[in-house]
């Protein structure tokens, strides 16, 4: 006889996983709508407005269209890897969401190494994209596959260096505890903890830039660069194969922005110390998502070597300085 608690735990987790997949898909759908509506505001136009009121059903129409399309696999493709790649991209993104605490109570799994889990899972999607590009048997996709690996390796280092400094300051890898330490008004947030390191706002900026690059967002969207590589790694994908990459892209943005919220912006805490809860987390999350979209539509794409130079010559040294400074400050004041 299985103990009742375990059954409940299994049911709870299953519901959470279903909920998270729904959350990821919902976010992908409506962030993609935001990706069309928000720049429409910048660009003096309307954006989609035919399907449903204010175009609100546009993502549904897009999804139906993608699902009804044939999955084309052409000659020369490594079929197994070609079909595996979208799955390998979407699964880690959902896994990351499972660890992230959305509020004190809304969190699928509160594990003590949550931070580590997020960063280990999130590095898998690189492999998926790379395999997808490589298996496509397309020169543009192969170039994109090579780019995505170089780019993600370059940006994972400063990202992790920033996070290491943060872990040194917070003494924990548990995301719940990290948020709890930031309870109260906004000057308790990690981004303003000058007593730990005066470079904290800079490290938040570093985190945000690296997050953009890790999520392959403009101006670092090297693997998709439509004016150079047609559609980059996704060139040969059609229908829901492309759709999964698409969902994963937005899921990765959500994961990245959630992590920024949790690590730097006080998670579910209110900036004024009032009524903490899920809504504050979501507000912060979507403000960051808006910034991601904003950046994309404001800047042209960088060159690949500028991108790598930025990481190796600027971000990594800065992250190291931040790390050393944090250590020194902790030794002196901590």
């Amino acid at each position: 006889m299985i103990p009742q608690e375990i059954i409940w735990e299994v049911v709870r987790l299953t519901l959470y996983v279903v909920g998270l997949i729904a959350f990821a898909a919902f976010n992908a759908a409506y962030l993609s709508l935001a990706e069309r509506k928000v720049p429409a505001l910048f660009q003096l136009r309307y954006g989609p407005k035919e399907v449903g009121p204010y175009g609100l059903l546009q993502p549904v129409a897009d999804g139906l269209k993608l699902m009804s399309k044939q999955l084309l696999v052409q000659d020369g493709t490594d079929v197994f890897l070609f079909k595996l790649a979208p799955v390998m991209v979407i699964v880690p993104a959902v896994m990351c969401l499972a660890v992230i605490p959305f509020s004190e109570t809304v969190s699928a799994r509160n594990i003590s190494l949550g931070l580590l889990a997020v960063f280990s899972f999130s590095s898998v999607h690189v492999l998926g994209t790379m395999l997808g590009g490589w298996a496509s048997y397309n020169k543009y996709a192969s170039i994109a596959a090579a780019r995505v690996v170089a780019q993600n390796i370059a940006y994972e280092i400063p990202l992790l260096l920033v996070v290491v400094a943060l872990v040194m300051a917070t003494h924990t890898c548990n995301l719940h505890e990290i948020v709890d330490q930031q309870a109260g008004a906004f000057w308790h947030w990690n981004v303003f903890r000058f007593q730990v390191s005066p470079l904290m706002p800079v490290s938040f900026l570093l985190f945000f830039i690296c997050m953009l690059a890790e999520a392959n967002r403009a101006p670092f969207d090297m693997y998709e660069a439509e004016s150079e590589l047609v559609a980059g790694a996704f060139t040969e994908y059609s229908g829901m194969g492309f759709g999964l990459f698409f969902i994963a892209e937005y899921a990765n943005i959500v994961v990245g922005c959630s992590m920024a919220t949790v690590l730097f912006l006080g998670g579910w805490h209110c900036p004024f110390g009032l009524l903490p809860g899920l809504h504050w987390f979501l507000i912060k999350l979507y403000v960051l998502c808006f910034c991601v979209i904003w950046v994309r539509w404001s800047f042209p794409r960088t060159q690949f070597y500028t991108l790598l130079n930025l990481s190796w010559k600027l971000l990594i040294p800065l992250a190291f300085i931040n790390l050393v400074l944090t250590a020194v400050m902790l030794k002196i004041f901590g």
Partner: protein
Amino acid sequence: MTQGTQSIHRETFVLNLGPQHPATHGVLRIKLTMDGEYIEDAEPVIGYGHRMQEKMGENRSYAKYLPNTARLDYVAAMFNTHGYVCAVERLAGIAVPERAEFIRVITAELNRVASHLLWVGAFLVDLGGFTPLLYTFDDREQILDLLEATTGARLTFCYYRFGGVCNDIDDDFVAGTRKFIAHLRSRMPMYHAFITKNIIFRKRCEEIAVISAETCRKFGATGPVIRGSGVAYDVRKLEPYSVYPRFNFNVPVYPEGDCMARYRVRMDEIEESLRILEQALDQLPGGPVMAEKVPRILKPAKGDCYFNVESARGTFGVRLVSDGTDKAYRLKLRSPCFSNLSLFQECSRGLLLPDALALLGSLDLVIPDIDR
């Protein structure tokens, strides 16, 4: 190459860019031989949209061929028509009334501004920034509205006729153009703030794809391309036609020869064109817009002539040979984009793919103008 890299097995591959590719702006194909992302050789393949315009020019009478000229460079159609009309007028000895010349200059300069605005937006799309396109389109739209009201077309204008223009401009046009000049002047600082000063844009353009003045001369590149390489070659100044000598304007020249220089030349040209427009509107004389006694059927005397105009993309030349009949014996259209593209193979060697596409964008190509 050092000893170390020689032992590494190097393998090149052929990347077929186009004929349908987001960066080629039409049916242009470039056969790239690549070493990784570096270009070893780039061979443009053109002619997908070839229509044998020159044969058409020999097959029909001068007036019947006239609308075809607007289908060459459809982004700046005024200049093609201008070149053709002037060549025929030169050969047939038709004098154009002053007012018509002024109107030609005004519409041509408006078209130049429209063409450059479109280019700025399209160039930014090549570099991955989509938003400026919508802003430049917004401004360009106002020009097209103005021209539409007068010429009856938004893109493929057939406005110039042998001996003048087909429609007189009205007060609305003059007032609208003045309003537009003020509007665009107020917008230029915004473009400079958002594009010229953008750090990523500058990184992508400065010292990228440098073309020397000598290369430009050897390949016959003209227009903003050669002016971005430090040569002040402008047909409007050197072989003045129409009433251009009456206006005070500068020829923007930047000596760097990189994509940024070509961009700056075009941005400055917009402002110079606005200056010309302003002066032309101020000095606009009255009178007829069509020469009297232009024969219905033109039969220019035997002989040949050449006529050059400064199009938005460079020198558009027309060589016309007449045998005394109502059809041209030979019509040669010298397209600026054709020569500008021909230096791509030479100048893209050793560039990275994105930089080569920046170069391609900065040449401002209109493929039907190349294919003719």
